[in-house]
């Protein structure tokens, strides 16, 4: 599984980007995005802001309290997006892409695609074992977000940090990497 983590500022601008792979079940913590995936990830993240905003401002599903952790909110093809929103309207977005082995027919198009369909293919239905709404996944992502939030608050307390500035602190990056290794 590969992850792309992005912090979005109040003007839809990226403040921080980080890419990593899973460290669970023998993973080496290196992401497996292909070149084209890599260029598409920002688009996908950006597009899910539509949903984030809807959840953010829409009618509350939890009575009274406004949760920071919005859980799994969006999906594009085989990319799942989870969100955490801070009090300052900064969004943490985590894009999860299950490993390619679990994605049959990911290449799509071409003669192969047609043949697959003629065989009554239901390629899309075999999405591996990844389930973005399973409690374990949700919990892991939540813990990850929580640690990042902790580090984030400490980072932006820096008096020289202005609203919607990019975060370049290596310490912060290090902490995100540690959290990723620990939980994902």
């Amino acid at each position, binding site marked *: 599984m590969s992850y792309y983590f992005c912090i979005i500022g109040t*003007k*839809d*601008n*990226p403040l921080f980007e980080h890419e990593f792979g899973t460290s669970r079940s023998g993973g080496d913590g290196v992401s497996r995005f292909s070149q084209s995936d*890599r*260029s*598409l*990830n*920002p*688009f*996908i993240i*950006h*597009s*899910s*802001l*539509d*949903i984030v*905003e*809807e959840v953010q*401002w*829409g009618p509350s599903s939890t009575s009274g309290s406004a949760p920071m952790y919005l859980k799994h909110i969006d999906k*594009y*093809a085989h990319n799942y997006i989870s969100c955490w929103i801070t009090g300052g309207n900064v969004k943490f977005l985590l894009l999860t892409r299950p490993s390619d082995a679990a994605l049959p*027919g990911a290449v*799509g*198009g*071409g003669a192969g*695609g*047609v043949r*697959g*369909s*003629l*065989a*009554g*293919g*239901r*390629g*899309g*239905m075999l999405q591996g074992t990844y389930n973005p709404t399973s409690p374990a996944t949700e919990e892991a992502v939540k813990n990850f977000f929580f640690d990042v939030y902790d580090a984030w608050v400490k980072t932006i307390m820096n008096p020289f940090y202005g609203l919607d500035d990019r975060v370049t602190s290596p310490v912060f990056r290090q902490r995100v990497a540690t959290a990723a290794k620990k939980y994902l």
Partner: protein
Amino acid sequence: MTPLQDATTSKPPKYPDPEAPITLPKQRASLSDLPYRKSNPSLSTLFASTASLSGSRPGSGTATPTASAIPGSVFSPGSRQNGTQSPVGFVQGISDESRSLIQRAFVPHVAVLASESAEEILRAKGFEGGFLQLLRPFGEAVPGKVTIRDSVGVNRSWEDFGVRFVFPTDGLEVPSVTERNAEGSTGTANGQRDSGKPLSSTTRPSLRTGGDVQQIEEVVDRHLQYSEFQSPEMMDYLNHKNTNPQAENSSSPFYTLYLRRLLSGLPLSPHETFSHPTAYVVAISSRDKDAVDKLNQLYARTEIGDLRLPQWVGQQVMRYYVLIHEEEHADTARSHQLFETMKRFYGLNCHLLRLKSNRCIPSDDDSVPLPTCEWISAGEELAEIQKHETADDITDPTPYLFDSDVTAIRSFIRELVAQSLVPHMERMVHQWNEQVLARRRGLSGRFMSLSKRWTPFGGRNSSSPIPMSNSNYDSLQGFYGPDAPEATMRKLADYCFMLRDYKLAFSTYEILRTDFNNDKAWRHYAGASEMAAISTLMSTQPIYSKTQIENIDVWLEAASYSYTDRGRSATPFYALRTLALGVELLRLRGSSAADDAARWVSRILELNLVGPVGRALFTERAGACYAVRTGTGSMRLGSRRRKAALWSVMAAEQWVRLEKSLQAEKCLDNALQLYKITSETDDGESIKAPFEKMQSFIDELRQRILTSRLANRGFNEQEEQVEQQRLAVEEVSETLDKSPKAHRKSLLGAAAPPIDVGPLSPSLARTREREEEKKDDQFE
């Protein structure tokens, strides 16, 4: 060709500037454009007339579609247009186009049979396809309003009612039968068109049978290719009046074409009766000796002879008898007498059609070209394109008609539809409604179905393939007998759907769904679910209740699942049809349903139901679905602007991969518009995309679009140098292009070798002209 190279190097297009439309540097637009227009006019009308039918309903009568009456949305690449379009505009202007498309797609099929002498007369007039070829284009739009009375007794008039004229065995996938018939009586459809023009895909059993996704892709691809090689300036000049913003809200013409081909030539199948003939038109000519005998003989062919349809096609069809009278040769009195005899035998369903027997040529005073058919299957259109490509400029294969003939045919069709066919269908609906549906709906009917479900050995507990005694479904062969109540009800529902009485159609499909489910008739079940969803969505009243929305989801899901997965008979074509129609109709419902529509689009892509062209088209469509949804309030809460932009970018990327630069540019412009990075800030700097990586990806896309456009224009230095050398030794010969793009080049007329010196001799002047032509092609 130094000027060419200079032009590109001295004026490099500015890629990163999002303002600049991606056009090649323009050198001159001069009179030398003119010869280019002439390149195979018949072919261009063929493409034009099909590709640009998107928003236009066919006029209900007199006007024959000609090349000049075409909204030029395809060929105006319209970076300007897109530039002025705001995403909000989508919502107000959702056109009803898809609904009317679907209405016109599901129409009664009328089988046409003609005697040998009748066919002979028409062949002499230049109609190789005989009587059927003559009628087909006119049946698509019945002139005037057609009034239909629905089951409740309310009359409604429709402008765009039509019928589909077919050969009795069209749509039947039994190769041997179809071929023999085509050669025998109507003569032509296969034999003649196939000769010498190998279809690039596998040869089909019948050209007029649709339902082949691969062929649809191919046709759309041909249209795309053609538009790609059209010089945009050229077309703007020709129909610049049409480049009004009106076309913007409608979908891409290629998408409409895709849908249209998807819905054309529905194959005959036991699980739906849309393509089963509702009537037979039997035609004889005044040359036939014994009229009544001949008519009976012809009709017998459909009942016991070679044109017999499979058992599951019900035989309760209307018959309509036509006497073709030749104006010049035949004796009027005798024809009238014959006609009287026919009337005596067959009642009112008779018509005397007066046609001139001479062949009409384009230069005649009142000549009218035979209109092109809108609803031809993909295979047939491919063959048609190939035919026009191989034909030279002078012999335009389109047959012409006299004006009086056109009037006669129109009035014949009007009479056939308004006075015979529609009342017949209404009567059948009424009859079945009373005899079958009411009984099934009543108490005893419910009890019957219950008892069927709960018999100890029957119904769902049984795993044996042997049909239960109380089930009408023949699970071995996979159909219901034509007299089974289920089959009749399906027919009733389909008739209602075709007569646009969606309420009764829906309630019938709903009953059928449960019945089919109990019988484990999966394909029938899928069909009923599909039509239940579509008929709900087709009705114009708004859907408020949540359960209904959820139901539609369930039906679509059930249909697509049963079509693709259940049993051995996977039919991806029907699944695609279900989902595509569902998407279109949901999109029409506006913002609340747009999300669902987009979800179903991504389902289409996930299931791999379409090929590369369809994939790009549907990706584009998903963007359009999201764009329909605008938010509320000043913050535009709940809008899907960014989603729409994402899908547009994806579509652009896929178009680039298919080397369709025009489409790619359109999508990209649209995306930029949605990302709001087309405008400039006050100090003249262009606004960048929010993410650096996004900006670089977009820039790269623009670069690739430009590259592919240059390549399409044949801008290839090495090739030109070789040509130049060849010219030095004065070998002006026709070079045979071996590349697969050969036919593209012939469209451009760019096979001529370039020279830089002026015409030295008259013999060279012609070459010079052609070279001019080429230069301009390359630069537009």
